[in-house]
């Protein structure tokens, strides 16, 4: 994938994610509605490919206002990934035609890879995760399962042991997928299943979409390194 295609795809996918997130806030409070309506409007030129640099700058200002409004991210990791993508796109536009642009997109690809590796590494270091107990506890009492019936999964330790190891091996092994385009396609298919499961079981829908929005950077990065 060329740099220009990856950049444009990331812009479009991020704008679609922001529209989805913003729509969810339009049912909220007046100050939230104003902020996120503005955010939604700023996504339109980005989608159309018109004045994208200005649209990105505007979205960055809105993102900082939202950070102030909620005194941090509204939705934890997914908001952090949203900000990371946004800032990398800002830098890529500011440094258009220079090495800075490629560096910004490469940084996004590296951070996306690290999001899996570091997460897998810290789980592997925890004996509760290695024994499958951590996931049992997640289902037993954490705030994430979307229904009471899902709490019943805590009574299926063998299944959760297998799921724990599946997640950890996928996460720490993810960098290997950068070695070949086919491996990357397989790695990202696994990643999509992982995010889909998180979205369905734990209601983390924003993670699903925003992580997908960073994928074009990874396709470009893989081709740049090993193409």
């Amino acid at each position, binding site marked *: 994938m060329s740099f220009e295609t990856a950049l444009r795809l990331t812009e479009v996918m991020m704008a679609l994610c922001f529209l989805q997130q913003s729509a969810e806030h339009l049912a909220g409070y007046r100050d939230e509605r104003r902020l996120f309506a503005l955010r939604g409007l700023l996504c339109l030129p980005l989608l159309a490919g018109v004045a994208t640099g200005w649209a990105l700058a505007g979205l960055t200002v809105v993102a900082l206002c939202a950070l102030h409004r909620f005194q941090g991210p509204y939705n934890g990791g997914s908001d952090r990934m949203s900000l990371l993508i946004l800032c990398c796109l800002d830098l890529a536009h500011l440094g258009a035609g220079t090495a800075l642009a490629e560096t910004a997109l490469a940084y996004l690809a590296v951070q996306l890879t690290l999001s899996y590796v*570091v997460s897998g590494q810290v789980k592997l270091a925890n004996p509760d995760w290695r024994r499958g107990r951590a996931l049992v506890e997640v289902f037993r009492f954490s705030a994430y399962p979307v229904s009471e019936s899902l709490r019943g999964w805590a009574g299926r330790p063998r299944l959760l042991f297998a799921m724990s190891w599946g997640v950890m091996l996928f996460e720490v092994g993810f960098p290997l997928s950068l070695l070949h385009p086919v491996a990357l396609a397989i790695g990202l298919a696994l990643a999509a299943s992982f995010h889909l499961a998180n*979205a369905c079981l734990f209601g983390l829908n924003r993670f699903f979409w925003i992580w997908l929005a960073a994928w074009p950077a990874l396709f470009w990065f893989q081709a740049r390194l090993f193409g």
Partner: protein
Amino acid sequence: MLHVLGLLAPALMPSWRFFREVAPSPRIEYALVSGPAEMPARWTEARPRPARLRPLAMLGRLFWNPGWNETLFLVSCAERMAERPTAHSTEEIRKRLARGLAEGEGVTEGLLRFRLVFVEHRGGRLRRHVIHVSGPLPLEPRPLDPRPFAPRPRR
């Protein structure tokens, strides 16, 4: 501005340590009170999750999930308050509880208290620890307490 940039920094250099450990998990409970001095005997869990959710509903939430995302924000507020109670987190919880009461039960006037209960699994059973009980808070809308963000007075 420096404060906001401080909030931005973890997004630019993220730690990505998702689910490193399963920490005690917060629940928000509330009670309506008849006067400022009343300490309620019974508390109601805020935003209880549904008993069941069909697979189609789960998939639908991929596209539209504002209620659950707001619930996760309230979990963040509760976790922030466990570290350091602030007027901002208190107000975010209050106004969302108040809206829930107005929309669900038609209650729009009076006072409420909320408490934060952290649940953990220890010694083979679930244990609950109350770590914060709010003062009496009005259900009616009120502006955010500006104190945490107010500029320092000029000398």
